[in-house]
């Protein structure tokens, strides 16, 4: 009986240990999932020269936005002029060092300058 009880007690202790480990793993999983969800919430998708550009930061400079657009395949060069398309008839120039707060679905255009011909 003693042995059996001891065996039984060990089993219970082991079970408790397993449960503790499972709980820790579960807590870690929940924490990781929450981080993933939070990370996805922070992503923002804008359009630069008709190409979707995903950024992890909502507040970036004009230069950072152009670089991200280039990295993600948009047709532009880093010294192009950046414009925020704010609506019908409206475009606002964005300087390289200007911070812009991005919103999902916003549209930007980057254009090379012209010369007299």
């Amino acid at each position, binding site marked *: 009986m003693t042995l059996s009880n001891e065996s039984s007690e060990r089993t219970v202790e082991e079970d408790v240990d397993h449960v503790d480990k499972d709980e820790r793993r579960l807590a870690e999983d929940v924490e990781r999932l929450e981080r993933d969800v939070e990370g996805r919430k922070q992503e923002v998708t804008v359009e630069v*020269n*008709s190409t979707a550009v995903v950024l992890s930061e909502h507040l970036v400079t004009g230069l950072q936005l152009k670089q991200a657009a280039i990295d993600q395949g948009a*047709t532009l*060069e880093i010294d192009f002029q950046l*414009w925020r398309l704010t609506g*019908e*008839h409206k*475009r606002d120039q964005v300087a390289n060092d200007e911070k812009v707060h991005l919103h999902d679905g916003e549209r930007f*255009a980057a*254009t*090379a*300058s*012209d*010369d*007299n*011909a």
Partner: protein
Amino acid sequence: MSSTSGASWPNAPANSLNLEGIEPEVQQALAEVTANINEGVLLAWPDGEGGAFVVVDDLDLGERWAPRQGWLGCRILNSYPDSELYPFYIRADARRVDGVDLSAPFNLGQSLFGQPATTVSRQPNRPIKGPRSAAVRFINVVDFVRTFS
């Protein structure tokens, strides 16, 4: 694209949406311009050689111009995108509101599709290729017309 001619562009063919015979690349250019120039009345029709004429009518040329409303257009050659959209044209009677004579890059006494016009002789300072090159050209020229000094 609208099929209605604007008042300041009387020479546009009645069927402005007939894209028959226009090269696919030129049709793509027209689609780019349509998607990105959200002002005025956009007219486009074939040039008979695989290219197209495209005009933004009833456009706000900006405070430097009298009359301020007018058209701006160009011909997209069948060789696009190997050829640039060049030159652009604006209505012939547009003048500087400050009375100063127009000079380069504006050239008086020209025409587009039989319509008297002033050319806007601007070119990219580098080749622009890619899915938005036609729209980029329009955006640049419209901005130049509105802001030149």
